[in-house]
C-alpha cells in the first residue's frame, strides 16, 4: 500500500483539523502528567503546516512530509516538535524510493522518534502508538480499534521518558498526551484509507 500525493495531503489536513479541534483536550492530558502545553504546541504546529501548504503547495509526497516536518520543528516549541519533525523528515527521505510500503514508512517514522528521543516502546510515549500501528500495518490489520488499543495501553504504563517520568508511579492512570496526538494522526490515516477501500 502506498499513498498518492492527494491522499497524503488529505491525511495531514485531517490531522491538522483534529489537532485544532482538540487543543484543550491535549493540554488537559499534559496538565495531568506534564507541563500542560501539548495542545498549544501541536496547535501551533498545525497552523504552521496549513500556512506552509498554502504558501507553496507540495509537489510530491516527499515534499509534503518535509514541509510537515519543518513546520513541526520550527513552530511546536516542545519535545513533540523535534519528535514529529524527525519522524516526518525521515519519512520524507524514505518515500523518495519509489516502492516503499506505507507500513515500512511508518516504521521509519517510529524509528526516527526513537532515535531523536533516545527512547523505545513501553516508556509511555508516542512510540507506544507508532510502533503497534507499524506492526499492525505490516500484518495488514490496521483499523481504528488498533489505534484505540495502542493509545489505551499507555494509560497503565509508568513513564520512563519525557516529563511524565518525573512523576514515577504517579504517572500511572493517565493517557500519554503525545500518544493521544499520535492517535489523531493515525485515526486520520484510517479515514483516508477507508475512503479508498
Amino acid at each position, binding site marked *: 500500500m502506498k499513498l498518492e500525493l492527494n491522499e497524503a495531503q488529505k491525511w495531514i489536513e485531517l490531522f491538522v483539523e483534529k489537532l485544532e479541534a482538540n487543543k484543550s483536550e491535549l493540554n488537559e492530558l499534559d496538565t495531568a502528567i*506534564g*507541563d*500542560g*502545553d501539548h495542545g498549544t504546541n501541536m496547535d501551533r504546529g498545525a497552523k504552521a503546516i496549513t500556512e506552509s501548504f498554502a504558501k507553496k503547495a507540495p509537489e510530491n509526497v516527499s515534499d509534503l512530509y518535509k514541509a510537515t516536518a519543518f513546520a513541526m520543528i520550527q513552530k511546536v516549541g516542545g519535545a513533540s516538535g523535534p519528535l514529529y519533525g524527525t519522524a516526518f523528515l525521515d519519512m520524507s527521505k524514505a518515500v523518495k524510493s519509489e516502492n516503499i510500503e506505507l507500513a515500512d514508512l511508518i516504521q521509519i517514522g517510529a524509528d526516527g522518534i526513537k532515535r531523536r528521543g533516545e527512547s523505545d516502546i513501553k516508556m509511555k510515549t508516542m512510540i507506544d502508538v507508532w510502533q503497534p500501528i507499524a506492526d499492525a500495518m505490516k500484518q495488514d490489520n490496521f483499523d481504528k480499534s488498533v489505534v484505540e488499543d495502542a493509545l489505551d495501553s499507555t494509560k497503565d504504563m509508568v513513564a520512563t521518558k519525557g*516529563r511524565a517520568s*518525573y*512523576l*514515577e508511579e*504517579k504517572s500511572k492512570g493517565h493517557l500519554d498526551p503525545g500518544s493521544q496526538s499520535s492517535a489523531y494522526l493515525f485515526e486520520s490515516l484510517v479515514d483516508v484509507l477507508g475512503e479508498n477501500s
Partner: protein
Amino acid sequence: MKFGIVIVSHSNKIAEGVKDLISEAAPDVSITTAGGTDDNEIGSSMQKVQDAVDANTGDEILAFYDLGSSKMNLDMVSEMSDKKIHRFDVALVEGAYAAATLAQVDSPLEIIENSVKDMKIK
C-alpha cells in the same frame, strides 16, 4: 500545601527562570526565589534567602541552590528559621523540576528525596 520550594542562585535571572520553568509542572506549589545580591548583581544575599523563606506558603521548604555562598546563606537562614528547611545538594534546575513535579501531586518527602538522589552532585 505541605511543601513549598525555594530557589537560591547567584543570578536573579536563573532563580526567576527556574521558577517560571517549574511552575508549569507545579502550578499549585508555592515557589519563591532568592537570586543575586541585594543590588541584583551576581552573588548572594542572606536577606533575600530569608525573604524567600518568609514569603513561601509551604509548611516545609524544599530548598535548591547553585554554588558555595548560596548554600552558606541558605544554611544561615535554616539555623535561624522556625520553618523546617530541607536542603537538596542536587542539580539546581533538574532537581528542582523533579521535586516540583512530585510536590504538585502531594508526594511525601521520602518519594521526593528518592527521586532526586541520583542528581546529587554537591
